[in-house]
C-alpha cells in the first residue's frame, strides 16, 4: 500500500489500463499538452503519444460522439469532460446514442466507453460551474454510473470502468483530487461496479451517500460519536449497478436512514434510493428517510451563500437526530 492522492490514483489507473490494452485512449480538452485541467493525465502524453492522449477542440457533443463511434468499432475511449457541467451539451450522444446502441442493434454493437471528469461544486464557481450531474446520467438505462470518494476507490473503479463493456459515466470531484489515501500497488487492483462500501460501521442510524459527500458523512458521524450516536456510513460507490443488498442490510440494522447528496433534491439520486428503501424495507423503518441535499437554488457565487447552499456535516447531524427523534 502507498499513500497517494485521488489525482494520482486516477492517473495510475489510466496509465495501467493504457499499458495493458492498446485500444484504450484518452481524449478531452487540455488532457495532453496541458496534462489535464486538473492534471489527472499528467505525463500520459509523453508516455503514450498524441495518438492515444488527444487534445480536443471545445466540442463536447462532437468528441463525445466521436468517442461513441470509436467504441462502436472496437476501441475503448476514455472521454474526459473538463467538468460534467459542460457535458450537458453532449447528453444527446450519451443518452440517445451510447446508452441505446446495444439495444437498438440487439447486441450487435456495444459501446465500451468511459465519460469521466469532475461533477458538482468546487469553491465559488457559481451557477454554471457547480452542478452535480448524476441525475442526468443515471435516469436512462444502458449506461452505468460510478462516483468514487477515495483514492483507492478512484483507482479500482476507474480500472473496472475502462474494462467494462458498457458505457460508464465516472464522476470525480475537483475538491477530491488532492485528497490522500492508501492505495494497493497491485496492477490488477480492480473494484467491481455495483459493490457498496461501508465506510464506517454503526448501529444507530445509517447515512447513505456517494461521491465527495462521503467525507461530509464521516465528519458528521464523528460529531455524533461524541453524543453517543453510532452512525453507519454507507458509500454506494456505484449508482448503477446499485448494491441494493448492502443498502437494505444497513437499513434493517439501524432502521433509521438519511440520504446525503451534493446535488439538488428534486429527482435527485436520494429520491430513488428512498423510494427503493420504503418499497423493500418498509417494515424496517422506524422513521421516514430524510434527505440532505444542496439548497434548491442555482449555486450562488458569494462565499456565505454558497456555504448555505451546500450540504454540511451539521445538517447531516440534524437530520440524523430527527430520524432518531432526538431533536428538542
Amino acid at each position: 500500500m502507498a499513500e497517494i492522492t485521488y489525482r494520482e490514483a486516477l492517473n495510475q489507473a489510466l496509465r495501467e489500463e493504457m499499458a495493458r490494452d492498446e485500444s484504450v485512449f484518452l481524449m478531452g480538452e487540455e488532457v495532453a499538452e496541458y496534462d489535464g485541467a486538473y492534471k489527472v493525465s499528467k505525463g500520459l502524453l509523453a508516455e503514450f503519444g498524441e495518438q492515444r492522449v488527444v487534445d480536443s477542440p471545445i466540442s463536447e457533443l462532437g468528441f463525445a460522439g466521436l468517442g461513441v463511434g470509436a467504441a462502436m468499432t472496437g476501441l475503448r475511449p476514455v472521454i474526459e469532460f473538463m467538468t460534467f457541467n459542460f457535458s450537458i451539451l453532449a447528453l444527446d450522444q450519451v443518452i440517445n446514442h451510447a446508452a441505446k446502441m446495444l439495444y437498438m442493434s440487439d447486441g450487435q454493437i456495444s459501446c465500451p466507453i468511459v465519460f469521466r471528469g469532475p461533477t458538482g461544486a468546487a469553491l465559488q464557481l457559481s451557477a454554471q460551474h457547480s452542478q452535480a450531474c448524476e441525475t442526468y446520467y443515471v435516469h436512462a438505462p444502458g449506461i452505468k454510473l460510478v462516483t468514487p470518494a477515495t483514492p483507492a476507490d478512484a483507482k479500482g473503479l476507474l480500472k473496472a470502468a475502462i474494462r467494462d463493456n458498457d458505457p460508464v459515466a465516472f464522476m470525480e470531484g475537483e475538491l477530491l483530487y488532492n485528497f490522500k489515501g492508501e492505495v494497493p500497488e497491485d496492477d490488477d487492483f480492480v473494484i467491481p461496479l455495483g459493490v457498496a462500501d461501508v465506510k464506517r460501521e454503526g448501529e444507530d442510524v445509517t447515512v447513505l451517500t456517494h461521491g465527495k459527500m462521503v467525507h461530509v458523512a464521516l465528519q458528521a458521524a464523528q460529531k455524533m460519536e461524541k453524543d453517543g450516536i453510532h452512525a453507519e456510513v454507507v458509500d454506494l460507490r456505484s449508482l448503477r449497478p446499485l448494491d441494493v443488498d448492502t443498502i437494505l442490510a444497513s437499513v434493517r440494522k439501524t432502521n433509521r436512514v438519511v440520504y446525503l447528496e451534493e446535488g439538488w433534491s428534486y429527482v435527485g439520486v436520494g429520491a430513488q434510493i428512498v423510494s427503493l428503501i420504503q418499497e423493500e424495507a418498509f417494515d424496517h423503518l422506524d422513521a421516514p428517510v430524510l434527505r440532505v441535499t444542496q439548497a434548491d437554488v442555482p449555486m450562488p457565487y458569494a462565499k456565505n451563500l454558497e456555504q448555505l447552499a451546500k450540504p454540511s456535516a451539521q445538517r447531516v447531524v440534524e437530520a440524523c437526530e430527527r430520524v432518531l427523534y432526538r431533536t428538542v
Partner: protein
Amino acid sequence: MDLHGIRPERALELMDAMLLYRRFEEKAEEAYAIGKIGGFCHLHIGQEAAAAGSILPLREDDYAISAYREHTQALAKGVPPRAVMAELFGRADGTSGGKGGSMHIFDAGRRFMGGHGIVGGQVPLAAGMGWSIRYRGGDQVVVCFMGDAAVNQGAFHEALNMSAVWDLPVIYVVENNAYGMGTAFHRVSRTGIDEKAAAYGIPTRVLNGQDVLETYAAFEEMAGTVRDGGGPLFVDLQTYRFKGHSMSDPVSGTYRSREEVEGKIESADPIRVLADRLREAGHLTQEALEAMDARAREAAQDAFDAADASPAPDPEALYRNVYSELNPDGRLFFDGLDRPDFAR
C-alpha cells in the same frame, strides 16, 4: 457512348440494385398501408441512385452509416432484404430482432452501422469510426449519409472540424433532396450545401445524385483518395424525394407542388435515367429490363413473405442487450417488474 468509364456489366448491376431498392420500398409502403409496419417509415424512392452509386463502389470492410431513411443503403451494403423487411415488421428475424425498426437497421458484420433517428447524430459517430480506422492504421473508408437539414445541427460542424483536424477517412454525404420534411432548404440557409464544409477546409464535390453512373464513378475515385490518406471529403449529392417525408406525411402540399413532384418524377427518375442511357448505348433491351424488374419484384415479395412468416420477438428479449452483461454484484433494473431469470 460514355458510361463514365463504367463497364456495361457493372452498369447493369447498378440497374439491378436500383430496381431492387425501388420494389423493396414499394413493398414496405404496401406493408405499412396494411399495418404490418408501424411507427415512422421513411422511404428512399427517387433516391436509389444515391444509395447504389455511393455504396456499391465500397469494399466489404468499409463502413456505411446513415440516418432513418436507410433501408436501401442497408441493402446496398449487402444486408439481406428479408432481414431488413423483417426488422420493418418488428419480427425476430429482423436485423435487430425487431427491436430497432425502420429507423434503426444495423448489421455489424456487413459494417452497416445504422440507422439513427436524431438528425445529425450519426455524423460524430462516423468521425469516431474514421478515428478507429486511423488509430489502427487501416485503409478502410467510412461513408456517412445525412439529409440536407442535418447541416444545421451543431453536431455536424463539430464533427467535420475534428475530421479535418485529424485527417479522418470519412466521406460525408449530404443527400440533398432540397427539403427537410416540409421545409425547403433555402428557407433555413442563405448558402448552398456545397458551402457547408468550407469552414473546415474539407474538399467538396457537387454531384447529380439522380445519375447513378456519375455518382458511382465519383465515389469510386473519392474512396480511393480517402483510402490513400487524403483525409475527409464532403459531397453535395443532389437528389429528390418522390414520396412524402414519412408514410404519415403528404407527398406534396404547401411546401412543394404536385407539379414540382411530377416534373421531377418525369425528368429525374434515376432508374429511367439509367435505362435510357443503357438503351441508347445498346446495352439494354426492353425485354431485358422487364426481366430484371421481375426479379426485383420477386425479391421484394420474397422479403415480404419471409418477414410476414417470421415470429414476433420472444418476450424475454425485452431485457436482453440493455447491458452487455448482467452485473453479478449490483442491480441494473429498477422498474420492480418480474423479469426472466437471465435478467434478475
